[in-house]
């Protein structure tokens, strides 16, 4: 069974996910950020499902392992879709919706194809390895896409506070996740490193909820103030 720190992180993460959905409903922004809400609702359902399977079958069981890897792949695809929906928000005025949609489909299929090619040699547990590989590769693609989206935000001088902060939170989440993943490769999942990824999972819905609470859709900021090094 997981320890008390794992349980606290699990509870906080699920509570923050629920908070974001409630905040967007209260602020009448549920449909505007539909895919973000969908991702967090899905994540909440998966968290509860994982908890019940863990409770009934134990951490070392096959049921838990399969559920963990397949649900993780599903969540990563949902996060990818949420990220693409942010592209539509930012590039909406350029009427580039169709290009974004097709680009996203090709990228998703390309990543899935690449992941399959990597795990195709492994005869045992092909589908589980594929789900794991797809998740990892989509996280990397997500980081690159968020970086490009941030470039587009600066280039197009996006002034809406909400999308800007949502994208920045996503960038922090992806970068932190990639850094902790690389760190775990160095030293193994010992000590504090094992809590970094779940804690980052709490950060994303928390910062999105705060953005939803603090700012309205009309809130604006000056794009030049966002640059790390003023030009």
């Amino acid at each position, binding site marked *: 069974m997981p320890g008390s720190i794992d349980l606290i992180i699990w509870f906080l993460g699920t509570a923050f996910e629920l908070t974001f959905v409630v905040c967007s409903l209260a602020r009448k922004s549920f449909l505007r950020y539909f895919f973000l809400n969908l991702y967090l609702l899905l994540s909440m359902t998966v968290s509860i499902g994982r908890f019940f399977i863990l409770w009934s079958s134990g951490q070392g069981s096959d049921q838990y392992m399969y559920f963990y890897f397949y649900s993780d792949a599903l969540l990563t695809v949902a996060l990818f879709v949420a990220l693409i929906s942010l592209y539509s928000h930012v590039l909406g005025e350029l009427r580039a919706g169709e290009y974004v949609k097709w680009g996203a489909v090709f990228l998703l299929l390309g990543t899935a194809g690449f992941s399959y090619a990597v795990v195709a040699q492994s005869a045992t547990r092909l589908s589980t390895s594929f789900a794991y590989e797809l998740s990892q590769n989509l996280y990397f693609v997500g980081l690159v896409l968020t970086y490009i989206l941030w470039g587009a935000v600066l280039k197009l001088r996006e002034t809406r506070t909400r999308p800007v902060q949502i994208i*920045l939170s996503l960038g922090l989440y992806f970068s932190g996740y990639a850094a902790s993943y690389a760190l775990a490769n160095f030293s193994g999942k010992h000590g504090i490193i094992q809590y970094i990824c779940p804690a980052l999972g709490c950060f994303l819905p928390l910062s999105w909820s705060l953005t939803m609470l*603090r700012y309205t859709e009309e809130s604006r900021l000056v794009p030049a103030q966002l640059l790390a090094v003023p030009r």
Partner: protein
Amino acid sequence: MMMAALIFVASLATLWMFFVSYCRSLMASSSRHPLSAEVRDVTGIRTVASAGDYRRVTQLLQLCPDRQEDRTGLQAVSIYHSFLTATRQMFAWIVPSLRSWAEHEQAGCAYFAAVALDRRIAHNREMLAQQDNF
């Protein structure tokens, strides 16, 4: 191992960039908020804050009853301020322009904290007025 090191360095660089921009976006929301005469008097900030004002303003913030709305924003900016102090102390001798950049950023942190102080005072006044009405 080499690949993991490369990913680690690249992700730390993007993490730093996103963190700076995130904190700047928090501070940008209060940069156009004019300070009240009382807060200007008590903090000593006239129109533009300086890097040295931050410590004094946070001490004043601790004296004022907490307001839940700005707690997380202040924590994020506090981490950013500590990070800037460390950056200034460690790298300013290698890249001298880093010192003025960090000081400029720390002045922004001080102004953000002063605006939070202003809001706390106004909030507490409002609460007192409501209590008096009862």
